[in-house]
């Protein structure tokens, strides 16, 4: 096959930065939505939990309709599944298969790659929140409170879980990340006030569990959405500490290869 002379003549240049980040975010989102295991984690499990526990009285969720208790917890779970579990597993394997390495020599700067990952996580979360909100409303959910508090909680929760997820992906082997991220997901699902109220645990355990990022997020969302409370500063504070510690540790310890 012949190629016209001059076809490969050098004409280097980087695409504009916003376009690079946008394309990278779109690709990462497509990879996530195409991955069956990731969809199971981010879409199927939260939706099933909401439908199952919202329509069948398995766990005593206190006064009021079960869905009013469950919906905020499942929203917190959705954030954790995408920002922590999904991102940790995907990034761990990208590191293992040299994707991060290859992209590091492309015109996209490293911080641009991280920005794209964050954007992709946020896009996925918007889709999750839309889906779960529709399902919860169909189950009779009546949310309260200030939407700004909810957005702030979701954003800080995303930052906290992203830091922890990237810390894991950038330091452990991909297989270890896969196992550990799934285990943490399962433990926090049970012990983080998502579907089981924290007051079912012994009081000593409650104090510790209450400081987990998932508990802070589900408790904060619940106080706003179920009880119509004002800005939940305590929970926001816990999430902020996790975010700062997690992102700083990930920034310092993340290894690209």
């Amino acid at each position: 096959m012949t190629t016209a002379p001059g076809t490969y003549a050098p004409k280097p240049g980087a695409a504009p930065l916003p376009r690079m980040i946008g394309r990278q975010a779109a690709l990462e989102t497509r990879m996530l939505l195409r991955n069956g295991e990731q969809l199971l984690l981010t879409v199927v499990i939260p939706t099933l939990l909401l439908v199952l526990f919202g329509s069948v009285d398995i766990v005593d969720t206190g006064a009021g309709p079960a869905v009013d208790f469950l919906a905020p917890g499942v929203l917190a779970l959705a954030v954790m599944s995408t920002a922590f579990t999904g991102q940790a597993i995907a990034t761990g394997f990208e590191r293992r298969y040299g994707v991060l390495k290859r992209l590091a020599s492309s015109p996209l700067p490293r911080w641009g790659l991280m920005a794209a990952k964050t954007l992709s996580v946020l896009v996925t979360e918007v889709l999750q929140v839309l889906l779960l909100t529709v399902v919860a409303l169909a189950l009779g959910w009546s949310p309260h409170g200030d939407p700004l508090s909810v957005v702030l909680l979701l954003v800080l929760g995303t930052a906290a879980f992203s830091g922890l997820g990237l810390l894991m992906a950038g330091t452990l082997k991909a297989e270890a990340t896969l196992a550990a991220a799934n285990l943490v997901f399962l433990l926090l699902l049970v012990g983080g006030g998502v579907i089981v109220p924290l007051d079912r645990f012994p009081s000593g355990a409650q104090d510790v569990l209450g400081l987990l990022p998932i508990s802070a997020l589900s408790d904060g969302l619940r106080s706003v959405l179920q009880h119509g409370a004002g800005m939940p500063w305590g929970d926001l504070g816990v999430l902020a500490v996790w975010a700062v510690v997690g992102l700083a540790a990930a920034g310092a310890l993340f290894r690209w290869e």
Partner: protein
Amino acid sequence: MRSEPVVQVRSLVKRYGGKTAVDGLDLTAQAGVTAVLGPNGAGKTTTVETCEGYRRPDSGTVRVLGLDPVAQSAALRPRIGVMLQSGGVYSGARADEMLRHVAGLHAHPLDVGALIERLGLGSCGRTSYRRLSGGQQQRLALAMAVVGRPELVFLDEPTAGLDPQARRATWDLVRDLRTDGVSVILTTHYMDEAEQLADAVAIIDAGRVIAEGTPEELCRGGAENTLRFTGRPGLDVGSLLKALPADCSAAELTPGAYRVVGKVDPQLLATVTSWCAQHGVMPDRISVERHTLEDVFLELTGKELRS
């Protein structure tokens, strides 16, 4: 062509833990195709990855297109294309999807469709990267290295494990790149690849460059070559020897099988055939054995197996 070198490495040292991978290496690559040869563990990949900005030198300086690959990475990255030895692609991505993505990170990329067709990746269709054959994965990595229309391409063992057709396709692309003014730094284990493609060759061993030059220069250097022919038994070897230059030797090894050892060039071949003509000898099966780059490589780096 520009006269300034595309890659200039001075006294590069790189250690991993206690092990010295690169030990005071000097390498200058001019525009064109430069092949970096060396046994496993010689320091080829470390040297190339330092040029690509992946590794920070422990000491020494590295300049690529006049830039420091670490400190001036942002300016350098759009101008180079990198093909890693393996991987580099999302396991769930399709070949065309990944190539289009990398193209989209550049301002003036190549026509992705034409590149896919040229490298025979059109048949990959909707197959995800992890299900592509090894050869398809290699060709995709090559395509990703050139799609941004770089000035300089780094290819780390681009044809390792390829079938002959895919190898030819890769060679043809490298030749076209060269013709169009793209410089190429190529590491390889295949001597024929270096002989076919390279304007210059650097042989690395134990973290240093131990020989460099054009493939012809390296093959000529000190190596003796052989000319063999068969004819009537019992020819006058002494008379042949007189016709030959002083530093040649000639012998009848077995009846009718003659061997001339020395600097084999067109002149020597003409001398032997004209001597045959004068003596009414029909030399059938004339063969010339010139030293190949592989002989030179083994001579320089030894024949024992490396880890």
